[in-house]
């Protein structure tokens, strides 16, 4: 991994360290049932803080498939809390009520990772604060310099493990953290919150934060159908593609970007405006179904969606493959698992699944310069 320089403008043309790793795994041994476990479920919880956008593309399909209806209708709600002080998230009341009873997600809203202080609460109970040097010194909590801040450190990362056995209401650590965030340097943010628990009773985020300005939000769903689209021909066992036979993963990735950005696919190579055209070989499909879900979506829901998509091929279908794209927050302090995430030029943080009819899949993960290689 090449480290970014302190002067991003000097490296901006070279695209250093952009990582893009397609993966291919067969999971033929698993029957397509809703409960079928995916082989590496852990690595699917990749973007630990909820993604912002999930996009689904199914060729040869005109309407929302029956198997997906319930999952898409129930992607779960999330909350936006205005001016929430960070110390509210580290109190033992909050930890006992939410963090220890399910997966609790929190992310600061409208903060920029390369300018502002940001915070994220991961489902494993870790609170990550990414703060500038002044705030770090005022806070007086233990942290480490950001990996991407160059020679002169201007940004620090503080990780507080809220579920650690040493972190209980009587411990010094607890008192210190609470004091630092409540009295020494109070930090306030607008937070996006989501909570996932399996059936356990208890108070809800809505009632817990009732004295704050809290608003429940539902993810926005947009559905459309494309007509007569050129689709690349893919073969699940040929990642690199073969001339005249199938397209490579890179070509597919660019094509997907073109589809989602409404780029015209049928240009001539001599065209003055644009020479982009659909990769060869391709077929024209009569219709393609597009669905976008935008909001603070938790990874558990994406796994549900993925499992439902495997069921889609349970019955014979015309489509040979379908794709599921997940965009992460560009300003999240973490990307994959707990790896630090930075913005650099674009803060890319996304992955794409291609699921084939025979249930082979490709997983393409893309991150920007200020990121570790995904797992």
């Amino acid at each position, binding site marked *: 991994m090449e480290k970014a320089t302190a002067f991003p403008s000097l490296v*901006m043309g070279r695209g250093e360290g952009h990582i893009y790793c397609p993966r291919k795994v067969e999971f033929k041994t698993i029957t397509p049932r809703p409960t079928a476990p995916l082989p590496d479920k852990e690595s699917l919880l990749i973007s630990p803080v909820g993604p912002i956008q999930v996009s689904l593309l199914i060729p040869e399909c005109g309407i929302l498939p029956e198997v997906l209806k319930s999952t898409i209708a129930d992607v779960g709600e999330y909350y936006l809390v205005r001016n929430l002080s960070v110390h509210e998230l580290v109190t033992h009341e909050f930890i006992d009520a939410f963090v220890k009873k399910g997966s609790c997600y929190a992310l600061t809203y409208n903060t920029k990772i390369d300018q502002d202080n940001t915070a994220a609460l991961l489902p494993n109970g870790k609170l990550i604060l990414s703060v500038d040097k002044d705030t770090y010194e005022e806070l007086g909590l233990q942290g480490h310099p950001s990996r991407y801040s160059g020679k002169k450190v201007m940004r620090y990362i503080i990780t507080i493990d809220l579920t650690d056995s040493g972190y209980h209401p009587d411990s010094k650590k607890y008192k210190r953290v609470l004091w630092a965030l409540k009295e020494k340097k109070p930090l306030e943010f607008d937070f996006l919150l989501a909570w996932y628990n399996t059936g356990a009773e208890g108070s809800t985020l809505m009632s817990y934060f009732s004295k704050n300005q809290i608003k429940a939000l539902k993810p926005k769903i947009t559905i459309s159908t494309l007509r007569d689209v050129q689709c690349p021909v893919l073969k699940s066992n040929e990642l690199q593609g073969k001339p005249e036979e199938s397209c490579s993963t890179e070509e597919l990735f660019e094509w997907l970007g073109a589809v989602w950005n409404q780029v015209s696919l049928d240009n001539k190579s001599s065209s003055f405006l644009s020479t*982009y055209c659909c990769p060869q070989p391709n077929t024209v499909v009569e219709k393609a179904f597009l669905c976008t879900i935008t909001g603070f979506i938790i990874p558990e829901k994406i796994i549900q969606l993925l499992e439902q998509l495997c069921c889609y091929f349970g019955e014979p279908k015309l489509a040979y493959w379908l794709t599921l794209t997940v965009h992460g927050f560009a300003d999240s302090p973490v990307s994959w698992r707990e790896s630090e995430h930075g913005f650099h030029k674009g803060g890319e943080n996304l992955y794409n699944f291609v699921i084939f009819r025979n249930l082979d899949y490709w997983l393409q993960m893309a991150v920007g310069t200020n990121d570790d290689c995904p797992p």
Partner: protein
Amino acid sequence: MEPPALPAATFERRVVRSGAEHHYLRVRLELPDGGARPNVAQFKQLVVSALRELHGEVGAALPVDVLTYEEKTLSAILRVISSGLVKLWSALTLLGFYQNRRCAFRVLQTSPFLLALSGNSRELVLD
């Protein structure tokens, strides 16, 4: 009792670092109110003339594709080979006039992945 072992799944991993062939830019042209708005061909011509102004004929020969263009908002997605990103970006930044009227290019987002341009969390308004 242990469950019977499943046959090993085939697994292949490929990592491409700094290997992106193209870079993509989402840009918006700012013009004073009123007056003619460029159509897509004039827009491309403007980009080429910006390159020529700063980098000469060699710069003007840099292949740039206008992937999308919306005349109403004057916003576009451009594609350029990765080695030409700095040239294009600097030329757009330093361009100041369109048909003798002040203008400015705003680079809204840039990425080596076209797909990343379809989901920008910095422009997200949730409520």
